[in-house]
């Protein structure tokens, strides 16, 4: 096959060279200023979509988890409410001593004096909203049987109270009676 010979004039060669350069410039402009930013924006948007989608998926899982936890926590919530209800409103120093006086009076022990010794915070993070109050309850005149029953009743009705020290002494003049000192710790919610 005989290809026709292209005879280019000088002017034509110049024009051709300029056209080739123009083509290269056009390609550069096209890729750098049009297609490049478009692709960049596209990949950025895709990444954003992926990120949001991940967040949405995680969030849906979180919402489901919260709903499951809500069902599981019913028992704990009821228990927690019951424990909170054991603590009356107000400062413990205001209500605990009269409460003890009434309690022991109901048990047949007329004289009962409760004093606040100290209060400390718990080390556990879970009990950061609760405080430990240490009390000293004096029963100057009580008989052993009543004391034993009262202590058992106190331990059964006050789950957040624990006795740490107990001292019982016979009264020298009245050996049928004992002098009792109870060191008790109560766990009370901070208000």
């Amino acid at each position, binding site marked *: 096959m005989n290809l026709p010979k*292209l005879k280019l004039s000088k002017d034509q060669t110049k024009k051709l060279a300029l*056209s080739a350069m123009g083509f290269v410039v056009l390609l550069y402009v096209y890729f750098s200023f049009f297609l490049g930013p478009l692709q960049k924006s596209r990949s950025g948007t895709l990444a954003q979509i992926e990120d*949001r989608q991940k967040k949405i998926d995680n969030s849906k899982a979180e*919402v489901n988890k919260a709903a499951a936890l809500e069902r599981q926590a019913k028992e704990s919530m009821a228990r927690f409410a019951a424990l909170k209800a054991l603590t009356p409103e107000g400062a413990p120093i205001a209500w605990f001593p009269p409460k003890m006086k009434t309690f022991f009076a109901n048990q047949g022990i007329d004289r009962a004096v409760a004093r606040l010794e100290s209060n400390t915070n718990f080390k556990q993070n879970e009990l950061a909203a609760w405080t430990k109050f240490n009390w000293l309850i004096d029963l100057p005149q009580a008989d052993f049987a009543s004391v034993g029953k009262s202590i*058992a009743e106190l331990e059964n009705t006050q789950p*957040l109270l624990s006795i740490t020290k*107990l001292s019982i002494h*016979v009264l020298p003049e009245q050996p049928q009676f004992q002098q009792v000192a109870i060191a008790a710790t109560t766990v009370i919610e901070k208000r």
Partner: protein
Amino acid sequence: MALHLNLLHEEILEQRQRQRDPLKIGLLVLSSCGALLFLYYAWNAYETLEIKSKLSSVEAEWKKLEPKVTQAQKRSAELTDVINTTRVLDDYIDNRFFWGPFLEKLSRCVPPNAQITSMEASLGDEDKGGGVTVTLDGVAAAREPRSAAEDLRQMLLEQLGKTYHDVKAEFKTLEDVETVATIGGATVPMSRFMLSVTFNPSAAKPAATPAAGRRKAKTKDE
């Protein structure tokens, strides 16, 4: 063979040369490439717009979900706190030492010929094992007052050992006193004692599991 006469030879040659003009061909190629590139760009732009609209819908969904998630997270944290606090409080309640049953046991251990005049009891820190230490002061009256006190010690060991672990009962002092007591019309000598009792209310008892039959019998006895 027919003879063809080309009278427009020069014009036709000129036209052919014009058609083969490289500048013109180049321009045509350039235009085609340009058109292709434009189409490719348009396709990409369309896809990008589509992706952007998808992003908008995802954003809208997220905006709708975000408050719910924040609320759910807050609620989860709240519930977890409540669960953990309740668990720790329950542990605290369950691990308490109950003095009522101990006092009952103590009262059952004291025989009629002995009297406890003073009791000092304390519960140790849970970090140190949570053991209970009891100091009992008392007097015993019998022909052999020391053996009456020893009976009390033995009884305490036996009775407390049924419920608690590592029970120890030791005399700190045991001495005869000059005072005498009258029991059932008879005058008997007395001794004074100081007894130290220690035990652990919560430690696991290292005992072998009893056989099924034996366990059943024991339950019946109880």
